[in-house]
């Protein structure tokens, strides 16, 4: 194998289009395709919302409360007689805004922190790394709950809190990649032409650790969806009147024995979204590895 990889002697056009190669690999990866299909479906639901629902997701119908799935109500109705099918579709919106924003915030902060501690090293790295380890020993949902209880809950605070909670996790992953990059000679070459610390970190090293950060981000997105759903379930995440799935499960889980449809479809929606994101993450990882 080594003989082959080293054989690219004529640097011809064959090697030119790595991006095209990757795209090609992505299009052939069944993992990535199926994940993207699931994710795409929910994004479509979030974008179009009530424009594609068969019924008004917010309209009560006190004559048809807790109706089982039927031709009129495919997924049945809830305690107020609202159409669950329509509410599941609309419920995708908030979580698909909050979770990605939180993940993006965590990735940006985490990448910056990881670059700093991984490149500068020394006392900064020792201190921050110990703090990160201490944070990781705590159950994250509890940390987030306490923070939200303190600052008050809204979509904005949920994004901020989850973003901050994810920062150290992503920082650790990026740091280990930066440690490897820092040892490479191109970093020494940059210092020898007088590049400053920030220039070395962001211009030289960052582009090379970015693929790792992107894969980490997609993995974290799966966790973030689960995280937001958990917080909503506990009443500290997305707030009513949103048709959010976590809220719906919280409102109805006591009825699960007799009226299973009030919980099942929201739970399945949450699960499918997490699975879809994780499939995309796995697919991306293998594409970047090639």
């Amino acid at each position, binding site marked *: 194998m080594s003989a082959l990889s080293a054989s690219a002697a004529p*640097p011809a056009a064959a090697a030119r289009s790595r991006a095209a190669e990757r795209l090609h690999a992505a299009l052939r990866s069944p993992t990535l395709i199926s994940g993207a299909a699931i994710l795409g479906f929910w994004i479509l639901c979030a974008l179009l919302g009530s424009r594609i629902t068969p019924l008004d997701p917010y309209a009560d119908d006190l004559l048809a409360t807790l109706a089982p799935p039927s031709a009129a109500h495919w997924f049945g109705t809830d305690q107020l007689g609202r159409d669950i099918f329509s509410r599941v579709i609309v419920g995708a919106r908030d979580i698909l805004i909050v979770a990605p924003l939180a993940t993006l915030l965590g990735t940006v902060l985490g990448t910056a922190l990881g670059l700093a501690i991984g490149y500068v090293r020394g006392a900064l790295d020792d201190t921050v790394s110990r703090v990160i380890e201490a944070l990781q020993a705590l159950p994250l949902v509890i940390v987030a709950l306490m923070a939200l209880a303190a600052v008050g809950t809204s979509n904005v605070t949920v994004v901020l809190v989850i973003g901050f909670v994810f920062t150290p996790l992503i920082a650790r992953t990026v740091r280990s990649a930066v440690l490897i990059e820092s040892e490479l000679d191109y970093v020494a070459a940059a*210092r*020898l032409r007088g590049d400053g610390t920030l220039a070395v970190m962001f211009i030289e090293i960052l582009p090379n650790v970015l693929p790792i950060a992107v894969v980490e981000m997609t993995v974290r997105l799966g966790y973030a969806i689960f995280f937001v759903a958990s917080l909503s379930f506990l009443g500290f995440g997305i707030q009513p009147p949103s048709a959010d799935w976590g809220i719906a499960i919280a409102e109805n889980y006591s009825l699960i024995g007799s009226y299973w449809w009030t919980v099942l479809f929201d739970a399945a929606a949450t699960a499918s979204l997490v699975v879809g994101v994780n499939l995309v993450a796995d697919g991306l990882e293998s594409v970047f590895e090639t």
Partner: protein
Amino acid sequence: MSSARTHGGELERGGAADHALRIEHLEVAFRIGRRERRVLSDLSLAIRRGESYGLVGESGCGKSTVALAATRYLARNGRVSGGRILVDGQDLLSLAPRELRRLRARSVAMVYQDPGRALNPSMRIGRQMAEVFEVAAGLGGRAALERAAEMLARVQIASPERVLHNYPHELSGGMQQRVVIAMALSMNPALLILDEPTTGLDATVEAEVLELIARLHAELGNSILFIGHNLPVVARVCDRVGVLYAGELVEEGPAASVFADPRHPYTVGLLRCIPGYGTSKNQGRLETIPGFLPSPGSSGGQCVFAERCANATGRCRSEAPPPVDLGGRLSRCFYPERAPALPRQGATPEESRAPPVPRGGAQAAQGGGPAAPYAVSDGAAPPILRTRNLSKTYRVSGKPLQAVKGVSLDLWAGETLGLVGESGSGKSSLAKLLLGLAAPDAGSEVELAGEPLPALADERGFEQLKSLQIVFQNPGSALNRSQTVRRLIGRALRLAGLFGRAREARLRELAASVRLTPRHLDEKPRQLSGGLKQRVGIARAFAGGPRVVVCDEPTSALDVSVQSAILNLLVDLQAQQGVSYLFISHDLNVVHYVSDRIAVLYLGRLLEIGPAQAVFAGPHHPYTAALLSANPGLENRGRRRIRLSGELPSALNLPSGCVFHTRCPRKLGSICEREEPPLAPAGARHAIRCHIPAAELGAARPAAAPPQDAPAPGG
């Protein structure tokens, strides 16, 4: 696996049994993307029982693929698309999985390049070795361990019992490779495959391992397939050699005759690329092989070497030559008799593209005559770079590790100082100190053009930074893989204070001076071959108009044909710009070729320094003498090697007195253990750190014609 030509196998078994390995018309293809690329075509070779066969070629020629195919370990995207492989008389491709396992356990053994990766890091050596006997020979624990100890003794490990209790990381690279060889030989395989077994080792260790392989071969009589890129090394071990180029065996024959009288232009070119023993840049340029290796399977219907061959005719480009029998040897060339007369390069396509380079008088200077461009100040002018008492002590879990101690060097403008030493000698640490990538100990002085240099690069001014640059060993690591060549060189041009159009113009000029074409500017490092990457690294180092360039093993990661082109380039740039080099290398012939003076480093101490000819001709420090005799050059064939006893001492626990006394073959006595000898004059500008007076050190290696079996000095 596909092929099932068992019938033929049965018929020929009688003949095949004389061969440990017989490969007939082998074709191997790899699927890359959606295309199949043929990496081996029509490859036939046979290794008789007890014979050692060397397979030589540059990277990408398919050497390792042969080894992998011969053990059916091809990567998943590779397959044998034609031909047969008979190992120990058995048709490898038709074996059932069970039989294949048995064959691998008993008949074939393989030793890879990196012994560190062949050993399990979490298992003691004893356990790993005993496992071989337990699994393959069904021996019990006690008996298996005893056999393991026997094998270790056989590969000349002095204290087998101790090594059995060691973990792999506690052993040096040379020891690890011995252990791997012992394991490979433990079932007394019919065929031993060695895939570049000494490439990662130091010269003296390499010489020892090669000697061991040759001795074991003579003792045990296994057949050996020795794969290597270094022709002299292979010639030293093997009876017969085959030269592989672009997946074809282009020449084959007895080792001595192939090297003495090659009959394929590629072999001729390869041999000419290697700087010979004691050659110097003053005697002229190194030969190169112009052009590039064709990509696998791309040159159907013509000779694979035609594009790079100065002898090629129209016939070579329209017709693929078959192997021609030249009486006991083969050459895949239409004109084997013309190969020895392959035209020397003066105006090969690659070189003629290069800008004219003033090389005043270089060709005329034969041997001693001082060639003008390299004439070096005799000390009247101040040195450009000067170090006094340069030391570096690292701390390893509280204990001091002295990497460099008290090195005082002068480097004059326009000269090359070669720095020689084995790994752990402090060569790279010294380079880091000069460049300011590590801070030296207090009391060290570094001066650039008479001005003291701040310790760290971050504290140095632009002027100082651009005056002192480096060409790294590994071009893959030295270039940021996310940047284009234009950006890689362009960022370095900021040091020169150039922007906008002036920068672009200078960039093109610089690229042209290292013979990169404008097309390369928009490519990224992974699209470039190793040699082209190294050219980018050189362009970057020269961007600011440096006065001193540290070359840290700039060619050790490259193939020999590329090495010669890079060395030519470095020498040309020096002649044009009057830059000084500190040239670090473990290859003595390379160092001698480029250097005006040579310094020998051992455990951070300067043991010898002097003009290149004087260091090679003697008197020698005993360590230099050992290094010179370990040189795998053809010149050393038939000469006894000076053996260094023991292992390189740990820098954490340095020997007292002279650091070399623990391994010195000429140790005087207790004075060597008590007192560190001074660097004493041994001739004009030549100094040696030894208690033995220079007059008695003598020329351990007579520079005259090599006598057969000269007695080892002091032994």
